[in-house]
Each structure stands twice: as structure tokens, then as C-alpha cells.
């Protein structure tokens, strides 16, 4: 698969897909999308990069071990519910705030952090599987 055309196009495809994955993650609260599907798109981006340049390149690029990324996502998702304790509402209740940044109102919620956690779990878990499979193919 390491043709010139593919290797030239792969970085652009990867970058675009990663951007798209974040977009899908963020629009997920009220529209189709969310952490799971966004995470899968990001994994597909890493897989494309891995097919084009080999697995070590991807491992260096994401810096952290995929399982550590998955762990951090799980932690974020679990802790996003714990914030409810301070507000005397049940675990995992959605807490909202709308701070104004540079004149733009941004809705920030614990739901969003839970979704980011899901995103990271999917990215970490499935990337780990995908990279091991690609490594086996290379070797």
C-alpha cells in the first residue's frame, strides 16, 4: 500500500479525518454524532496513517500508549459524573454552564466531558487493536 500517491495523500486525509472526528464529537449532543462515532473516525485516521507510513510512525505521533489514552478517557467519563456530588444531584446528572468567551456563548456541560471520555476510550481501545493488527501484517 505504500505507493507514492497514497503516501502523498495520507497526511491530508488523516488531518481532515481527525478534524472531522472532533467536529462529530462536539455536535453530538443534539445532532447525530458523539464520542463513540467521533472516536471511530479518529481511529480510521490513525489506521490510514499507519498503512501509509508504518505503525511506528503512528505510535510516535500519538505519543501516549493507546491503552493510556483509553484509561484517561475512562477516568474522565467516570469523574464527569462525580461532579454531581457537589451539587447534590444524582450521579451522572448533566450540569450546564454557559460562559461567554470573546463574546461567544459556549455551552459547557458534564455531558460534554463524559462524551470526550467516551471518545478517548474508543480512540485508545480501537487504535490499540488496529495498530497491533497492522504490526502483525508488517512483520
Amino acid at each position, binding site marked *: 500500500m505504500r505507493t507514492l500517491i497514497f503516501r502523498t495523500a495520507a497526511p491530508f486525509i488523516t488531518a481532515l479525518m481527525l478534524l472531522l472526528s472532533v467536529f462529530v464529537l462536539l455536535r453530538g449532543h443534539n445532532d447525530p454524532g458523539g464520542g463513540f462515532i467521533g472516536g471511530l473516525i479518529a481511529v480510521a485516521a490513525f489506521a490510514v496513517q499507519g498503512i501509509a507510513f508504518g505503525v511506528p510512525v503512528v505510535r510516535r505521533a500519538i505519543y501516549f500508549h493507546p491503552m*493510556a489514552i483509553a*484509561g484517561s478517557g475512562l*477516568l474522565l467519563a467516570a469523574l464527569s459524573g462525580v461532579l454531581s456530588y457537589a451539587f447534590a*444531584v*444524582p*450521579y*451522572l446528572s*448533566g450540569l450546564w454552564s454557559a460562559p461567554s468567551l470573546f463574546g461567544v456563548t459556549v455551552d459547557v456541560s458534564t455531558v460534554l466531558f463524559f462524551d470526550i471520555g467516551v471518545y478517548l476510550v474508543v480512540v485508545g481501545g480501537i487504535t490499540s487493536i488496529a495498530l497491533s493488527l497492522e504490526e502483525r501484517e508488517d512483520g
Partner: protein
Amino acid sequence: MAGESYQVDRAQAMIAGPVASADWLIVVPVVLPIVCGALLLMFRHRMRIHAFMALAALALVTAANASMLRRVLADGPFSMTMGGWLPPFGISFTADVLGVSFALVGSAVAFICCLYSLGDIDRTGRRYGFYAFLMLMMAGVNGAFLTGDMFNLYVWFEVFLISSFGLLILGSDKAQIDGAVKYAILNLVATTLFLIATGYVYGTFGTLNMADLARKVDGLSDTAPLMTLSALYLLAFCMKAAAFPVNFWLPASYHTPRIVTAALFGGLLTKIGIYALMRSMILIFAVERAAYSMPIAIVAGATMILGALGALAQSDLRRMAGFLVISGVGVMLSGLALGSEGGLAGMAFYALNSMVVMTALYILAGTMGAAGAGFSLHDLGGLYRARPLLAAIAFLLILAAAALPPASGLWPKIVLVQASLAEGAGWLAGAILVSGFLTTLALGRVFLLAFWRPASASLPIARVPSLSLAVLLLLLVPVLLVGLYPEPVIAMSGSAAKGLLDPSAYIQAVFPQAGGG
């Protein structure tokens, strides 16, 4: 939040008042292991801290469960519904005596197994994430015991099942993979049946909240296919609990992993099947259970006798322990077949006792295997003279597993035999006694061969790690305490059985406004 575009009155679907801090205890046994497991995944190369983090988390979880047990024994069940939605829209966690006592003993046993793992799990095991898997499995186990929602129960089954696959193949031997495949396929079939049944339940009742199901089931008994639903649950959970004739996955897999993993599985996982059976067949499908009482009794009798016969036929200590787990499951199922308060109390008591005793038996097998040369009864010998303390521990544990005094196994069997005689099922009482006799024979054979028989000259007896002995002594403490003073546990399992047979307090905890109806 798209609050501007359409207005929905959410007040009727949301919990209005503040939630008491004490209610938060109910999520601790699930959230804490998940957080700890996540941290272990993040620091997967800092292997020194793994065991200590896991021990600390399990100690806290045990403490949380103990304090919840005190509360439910004093004040009755309590509930918290996630996300602020009112039940049955939100997923409820409901703590009652049955669930919390199982969760407490389960996490205490896991803590002790974690202590034992300090000597049993080497660097490779830690590197492959033994402690992370252990934490996630305990999150699943506690979630299954505490959840009050049928679909959520399925989710926790999946959580502990997937983690248990990881624990099972830690080391990737050929035998382990072979065992894991059998374990995985059979368990996936069971969870699929469980999921199908849950789908049908949702289609029929329009709700999956257990308390809601319990109060709606009477109104639907004429129209809904409740016999089919309860048969599906019965089959799925009997597979999980390893009841005859769907028990063959257990002896095929439980002898392959590390001893500590086998001890955890043998102690905890089949009991979750038993717990789910009690939850579904008594709390929800009580009438249907009465109709299935005879088939369940036959399955129970066959499981306990064939399990004990299987144990008698084995020469590998770990395989023998696996068959003893199955035999115990049969004894527990006899309580379900009876369905009376005494039967269910005996079932719960026996399950709690079995969690401790079966874990101890596996650890004993591991210690004997480490002292002698392997797990085969053909080779072991001379342990009585060489390791007298181990022999004493083994003797007491054998009494516990065979349900003889002074160990704790005696009392639940007495409760169950009494309950069978009270229901006029003399043959079931006979089967319980015969299975106890066969278990005594099987374990007496172990004592005879491994301890009393003179050691063969060619096999030197190795040093027994003092950690293993300490862990075994620790496990013996509750066994002997409960054996000598069983009243508190008998009262607790009685109140667990009462809570299942009369679910009004359970329903009241989830739906405080609506009352019991």
C-alpha cells in the same frame, strides 16, 4: 442546549429534591474500581504501584459495602436513579440486603485474592494488566449486585465478562486460550439469551426497572408470555451459574488460569448467576418460578450430585475444585426450587459461604501445588509431616467445603434441608445430604493422598510462601466465626429472602411517592 427552539416541561421527569450524601455510597463500589482501573491503565508501566492501588481501592469498596449493609439492615432498601431522571426513565441503583451482602462478601474476597496475587502475579502478569482487569471486573461484579435495572444488569454482566476474558488468558498459554474459547463462547451464548429475554421484557412491559417490573407483573399475567420470558432468563442464568446440563464450560476453563484468577472466578462469577436467578425468578417472575419448581429441583439435584461425582473422579486439584463449585451451585439451586423463605435464605447464605470457601479451596490448591510438585494427586504426598500448618488449614477447609462442623458450610445446608423437608421435598433434602457425603469423600481422598501418604522420594517438598498461609488463615477467620456463631448471618439471609418475597419495601425505595402499588 437547544432550550430555545422547543420547550419541554421536564419537571415531571426529573428528580426535584437534593440527593442525600449517604445515598452516594451506592455508586462507590462501581465508580471507585472504574477510576482505579483507568488510572492503572494510564500508569501501566509503573508496575510497583499497581498492587497497592488495587488493594486500597478494594479496601475502600469493601468499607463502602459494609456501611451500606449496616444501613439496609437497619432502614431497609434505598435507591439512587442516575442522571437526575425519575425512575423508570433513569437507571436505578437499588441496594437491598441481598445485593449488598453479596457485594460486600464479593469485594472482601477480591481484596483477599488481591493480597494473594502479590505472590502469584509476576511482572509479566502486571504488565499485561492483571490489576486493571481485576478492577474492571470488580466494577462489573458490584454493578451487577447493586443495579436495579434489567438492561443495566446485562451491561454489568458484559463488563465483568470481558474483563474475565482478559484475566483468563493472562499469559497466553495454549491451554489457557483453549479454555478461554470454551468459556467465551458459552458465556456469550448465555448473555445473548439474556439480552433477547430483556428485549422481550421491554417489549412486553415497556420498562426495565426491576421495581417497576415487580409491581407491573401481576397486572400482565393474563396477556404477556411470562412463562417464555422466565424460561429464557432461567436458561441464561443457569448457564452463567454453571448448572447441569449447561455446566461444561466451567471444568473446561477454570483450571487453566493463574490460581488467583481461578480463585476469583470460582468464588464470585457463578454466584452472580445465582444472584441474577434470585432477582429475576423471585422478585419479578415469582408465579412462573412456582410453575417451574419441579424442573429446577431436578436440575438442582443433578447438578449437585454430578458435580460431586465429577470431583470424585478428578486427580487434578484445580479441576476438582471446579467440580465442587458446580456441586455447590446445585445446592443453591435447590433453594430456588423450593422458593420458600427458608429455601431462599439458605440459598443466599450458601452462596455467601461458597464465595469464601471456594476461593479458599483454589488458593489451597495453589499452595499445595507450590509445596508439592504440581496439582496432580498422583504425585502429591507427605505434606502432613512436612507442612503441618498447611495440613491443619486444609483440614478445616475440607470440613467447610463438605459442610461439616465447626465450619460455616454446615448452617446453610441445615437451613436448606429443613426448608426441603418443610416443603415435603424429602428427596431434595436427601440429594443435598448425598452430595455433601460425596464431597466429603472427594476431599477426604485429597487429604489421604496429598497429606497422609508418605512423600515419594523423588519429589522434594518446597517451602510454602508465608503469604499464602496468611491469606488462607485470613479466609478461615470468617469461616470459623460464622461456623461457631451463625445467628447474624442467618438473620441477614433471612431478611434478604423476605425482601425478595415481599418486594413492597424494594418498590417503595425506588418509587417513594407511588407506594407499593
